[in-house]
């Protein structure tokens, strides 16, 4: 039998029928929906007289435009409230389970799927959101789709797809202290570029990946879309199984052993051939900070901001020039000389309990620098409760952070959490595009520990020498 990659195994096990030529109809195991990209899909269903084929495999939450100050749809603003009400009405009409703002487990769709055990190895998972790649951390094919495709999945529980190319990203060795999965994925994107993964599904492997927790693996797969990859995935292992055991929607006791046996078959065969392979030594990765306006414009915190002339590609050089202007920085400047106005710790990339623990460890007993607005937005109700039970919330509040309700928040500023024009933000989110966090906002992507340290110091700091530089003990 021909050797297969993990992606190919899962893809082939989901082929319902060959549509024509190179297009297959694939079955979808989980369809996650939210308020922003679903209303037109439900309207389309209604117009065509169709219904939701498998409401039992469809799960809805409210996350993108909810207020993080008050757990009420009335606090979201008029047009957002209407969109949230539309989701509630659609879910009711089509019998789709909804975690609304009154539900204790409501949260960011890519945080709650895993923590409820909805996300499992070997599945195909889709959602009208590009960061659906997060769920690939469990060894599932998970990717974002548009609203027309949401409508297609609602109607048929399938999607027309073509086989993607395969990219192997091997991270060897082990991570240095203070270097997190966020730094790893930013370094990978820096090397491959924002389009380096176009047309590929990336599989992350190697000892550094094996050593990561599920939270870390989710952060890694979450940002695989930022290099253009259709999806990112990691073969499941004991860490995956241990995470899932006992989760509300995980396989029940009578099926658990059979499920694990199946999951253990989900790996790329030793002699499987990938279309492209990249190997990175974990030891070479330092804490990363983006300096520009796309995620490939990234450097280690101790590197100078690059000069446009240093790019041999003329188009990249031009992009660098524009980015420096937009970001209000100059070539050769040190990141550690840049003052921050806002710090945002949250988003589907970095709002899980482990992220909050890392941030709390940095800020404990210290104060947010004066003039800095610092927000912590937990990814879900569960994360929030756990952080409060562990005393993390008290640490944050005592340090001067705002402790918020779950939601996407300042990652994309669809609610009222925005970065003002010209303000500089250290953000644990995933995109530093122009205007992403608000018109004119200047976003620097970092890990939770780096963001926390920036809040205390009032400027970017190298987390690996944070204590020794005094870290804002004022």
């Amino acid at each position: 039998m021909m050797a297969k990659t993990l992606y190919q195994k899962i893809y082939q096990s989901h082929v319902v029928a060959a549509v024509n030529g190179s297009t297959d109809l694939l079955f979808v195991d989980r369809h996650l929906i939210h308020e922003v990209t679903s209303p037109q899909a439900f309207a389309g269903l209604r117009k065509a007289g169709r219904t939701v084929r498998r409401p039992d495999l469809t799960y809805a939450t409210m996350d993108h435009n909810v207020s993080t100050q008050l757990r009420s749809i009335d606090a979201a603003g008029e047009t957002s409230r209407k969109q949230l009400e539309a989701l509630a009405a659609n879910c009711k009409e089509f019998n789709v389970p909804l975690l609304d703002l009154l539900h204790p487990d409501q949260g960011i769709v890519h945080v709650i799927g895993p923590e409820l055990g909805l996300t499992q190895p070997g599945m195909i998972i889709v959602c009208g959101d590009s960061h659906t790649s997060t769920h690939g951390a469990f060894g599932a094919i998970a990717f974002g789709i548009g609203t027309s495709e949401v409508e297609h999945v609602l109607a048929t529980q399938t999607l027309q797809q073509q086989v993607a190319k395969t990219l192997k990203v091997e991270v060897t060795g082990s991570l240095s202290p203070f270097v997190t999965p966020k730094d790893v994925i930013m370094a990978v994107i820096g090397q491959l570029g924002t389009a380096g993964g176009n047309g590929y599904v990336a599989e992350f492997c190697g000892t550094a990946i094996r050593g990561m927790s599920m939270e870390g693996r989710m952060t890694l797969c979450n940002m695989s879309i930022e290099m253009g990859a259709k999806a990112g995935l990691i073969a499941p292992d004991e860490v995956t199984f241990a995470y899932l055991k006992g989760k509300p929607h995980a396989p029940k006791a009578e099926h658990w052993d059979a499920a694990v046996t199946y999951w253990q078959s989900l790996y790329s065969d030793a002699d499987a051939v990938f279309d492209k392979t990249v190997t990175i030594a974990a030891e070479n990765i330092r804490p990363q900070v983006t300096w520009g306006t796309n995620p490939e414009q990234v450097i280690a915190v101790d590197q100078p901001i690059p000069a446009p002339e240093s790019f041999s590609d003329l188009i990249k050089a031009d992009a660098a020039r524009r980015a420096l202007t937009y970001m209000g920085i100059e070539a050769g400047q040190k990141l550690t000389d840049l003052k921050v106005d806002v710090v945002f710790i949250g988003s589907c990339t970095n709002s899980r309990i482990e992220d909050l623990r890392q941030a709390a460890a940095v800020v404990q007993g210290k104060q947010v620098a004066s003039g800095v607005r610092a927000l912590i937005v937990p990814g879900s109700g569960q994360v929030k409760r756990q952080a409060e039970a562990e005393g993390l919330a008290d640490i944050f509040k005592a340090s001067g952070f705002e402790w918020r309700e779950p939601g996407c928040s300042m990652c994309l500023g669809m609610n009222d959490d925005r970065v003002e024009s010209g303000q500089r933000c250290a953000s644990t989110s995933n995109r530093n595009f122009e205007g992403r966090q608000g018109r004119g906002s200047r976003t620097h992507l970092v890990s939770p520990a780096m963001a926390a340290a920036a809040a205390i110091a009032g400027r970017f700091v190298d987390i690996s020498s944070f204590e020794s530089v005094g870290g804002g003990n004022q």
Partner: protein
Amino acid sequence: MSQIFAQGLVCPLDKNNVDTDQIIPKQFLTSVSREGFAEALFYDWRYLANEQPNPDFVLNAPQYQGASILLTRANFGCGSSREHAPWAIQQYGFNVIIAESFADIFFNNSINNGMLLISLSASNIEFLFSRCQQGTQEWKIDLAGQQIILGNNAAVGFQIDPDIKQRLLSGLDFIGASEQFAEHISSYEQQRAAAHPWLG
């Protein structure tokens, strides 16, 4: 046989990595409608902070008013999965985008709205931009023959996936097409429930 899929004025947007946050900023995503996004297209570039048109942005240039073919560079449409991006582009009047490459989700979303996205080599893209520098361009897109007809006997050929080409030419409803496999879906569901009962 030549079949003209589209024809019209070309607007050159000389940028790489145009992301969906630029194509349509977040404040326009709270709508529950599929319509009404033309004004939102490239909002932050197209309008100044005082909401007056930005005279420096190419879409506002008098010679490109009424353009229906967008020419741009690599990795167009990267970022979010928002289908509002192709909706805005199409509702503004573009039904064809020519670029060196496109982000995957944006590509699928555009095709699902009947738009034609053409990928060309960097050198061909460079050539087309140089034509635009010589003066405004009106091109015809021959989808069946897979060529961009530039006029004066000049044309640039392009590759397209045969399944996508067929869909665009036939205008087939893709949900309807998949529904024809209803029996296959039912039998897959039965087999799935038997083999992996924990999946629900």
